[in-house]
């Protein structure tokens, strides 16, 4: 539609005229492009539509063939009943607590380490960094059992310690990737800033806290988002370490809810929608950083 009105407006319309045939071909290509995009978007969005319509439907309407797409009536009580059948609000608070502690620990210890590995000179630094990075590709299953046994020996099962303490050691394991990302970012900040501060008698901590950190907000936001999402979505960790239902996270709560209300599709979809919604909301607020973050992880390999 827009392609049709574009040519007359163009100041160069006269010059382009001889290639009108080619333009026709291009317009045809454009149409094909949008047809292909829509063809891809429909199956991508369909599961979401299915989720929302099922979450708002009465059972009777859900089991009608051929399937109906518009709930009638809108069964909002699916949400209220599903979310009170199990204490999802409590699971939400638990998940937020774990996520916030993990994000704080990861951001703080990873950026401190990244600062040391990029802007302070000490013997063995590069070797230490290489050794640290070797842990990134390690399959999590290899460290799973001894780590579990360790927490068991320490009497920390059924607490949040196994889920949060590792993040205060630079994320440990896969989280080390954050050290790498932050270090790459820190290396782009001019070193003259540090030198000037040291001449004024500043300590490395001051340089870190008052110069490097404020200049690294984009990288810190990226690490924050991905750590938050990683914790929010983690299932195996809570599954292994938490027994008491009062301590469940959203993922664990949803899995247990699923095993109880096996065929209550309205409830199941309402609960799923409620678990998905906060992350999607977060995405819409911080969209730019999400895309930048994924891009960063791909490019800086």
């Amino acid at each position, binding site marked *: 539609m827009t392609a049709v009105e574009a040519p007359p407006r163009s100041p160069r319309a006269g010059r382009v005229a001889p290639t009108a045939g080619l333009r026709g071909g291009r317009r045809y290509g454009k149409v094909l*492009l949008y047809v292909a*995009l829509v063809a*891809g978007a429909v199956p*991508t969005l369909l*599961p979401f539509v*299915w*989720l929302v319509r*099922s979450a708002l439907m009465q059972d009777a309407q*859900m089991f009608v063939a051929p*399937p109906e797409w518009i709930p009638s009536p809108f069964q909002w009580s699916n949400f209220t009943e599903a979310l009170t059948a199990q204490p999802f609000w409590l699971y939400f608070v638990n998940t937020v607590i774990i996520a916030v502690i993990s994000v704080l620990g990861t951001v703080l*210890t990873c950026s401190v380490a990244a*600062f*040391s590995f990029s802007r*302070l*000179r*000490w013997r063995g*630094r590069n070797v*230490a960094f290489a050794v*640290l990075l070797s*842990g990134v*590709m*390690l*399959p999590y*299953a290899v*460290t*799973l*059992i*001894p780590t*579990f*046994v*360790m927490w068991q020996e320490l009497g920390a099962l059924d607490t949040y310690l196994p889920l949060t303490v590792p993040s205060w*050691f630079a994320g*440990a394991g896969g989280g*080390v990737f954050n050290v790498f990302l932050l270090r790459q970012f820190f290396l782009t900040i001019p070193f003259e800033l540090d030198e000037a501060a040291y001449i004024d008698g500043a*300590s*490395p*901590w001051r340089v*870190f806290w008052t110069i490097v950190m404020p200049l690294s907000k984009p990288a810190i936001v990226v690490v924050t988002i991905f750590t938050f999402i990683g914790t929010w*979505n983690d*299932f*195996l960790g809570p*599954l292994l370490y938490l027994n008491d239902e009062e301590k469940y996270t959203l*993922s*664990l709560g*949803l*899995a247990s809810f*699923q095993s109880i209300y096996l065929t209550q*599709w309205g409830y199941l*979809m309402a609960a799923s929608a409620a*678990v*998905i919604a906060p992350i*999607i909301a977060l995405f819409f607020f911080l*969209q730019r950083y*999400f*895309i930048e973050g*994924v*891009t960063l992880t*791909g*490019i800086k*390999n």
Partner: protein
Amino acid sequence: MAGMSGQRRMERRWGLLMALPALLGFVIFTAGPMVASLAFSLTDWQVGGTPAFVGLGNYTELAGDELFWKSLSATTYYTLGAVPLVLIVSFAVAMLLNQKVRGLPIWRTIFYLPTLVPAIANVVLWIWIFNPDFGLLNSLLRQAGLPTGQWIYDEAMAIPSLIVMSTWGFGNTMVIFLAGLQGVPRHLYEAVSIDGGGPWRRFWHVTLPMMTPTIFYNLVVGVVGTFQVFNQAYVMTEGGPNNATLFYVYYLFRIAFKESEMGYASALAWVLFMIIVVITFLLFRNARRWVYYEMAGAR
């Protein structure tokens, strides 16, 4: 000069101090557990009992363990299906979005959205989509007059179904491809056009070679990640039907935390580790043949 060396000393002290959490974390949560799991794998150890040294006994037992081979083949099947499919779909969509598309952020958001769905919510949603009686898939097929399927409840269809499900989350891979495509230098395309090359030649001689490093990155990350699939088996299929979806990590989890055989499970973990090391090594060695590095000469 004295001040300079004072700063050096300060840097060394602070450098070590600030790297300490990360280094301790490596020892406590990575290196230590790795050595420990190797040691565990040489023992017969039921939780609550005392470990008894059995040498390579667990590993020889593995060789004769039918379920071990079953889990290995199920996981390989899944990886061989899911990784190429995700790569192709995400590359194709990234190519589309790399044209001059109106409303690029909206399209990108649409295709990225499934990636945001938390793993367990994703699994619950797809159980419902795969539901043979009233699920989305069979409802649509029935309406179109096509034959329906039992999906995850059918031994032969279970893994293909999970592969389709995994393709839904192609958003991350797509965004990385899109960034790679936007980094292909314009002048290369112009050079091909001047030589009279059309879209196909531009694709084969510029886009594809320039994208090989990005394809390689997505391939390695995809294979390593997919090989460790767990949630689908745990929540959706419990490894069934008839162990068709007994994925490796799920089998390991069952041995360790349901049957409490920590020694045997540790052997499984180390075999997994070796498999992933070998796959990664082979991928990297093979990469020399097809991955194009612009700066290869400079390095």
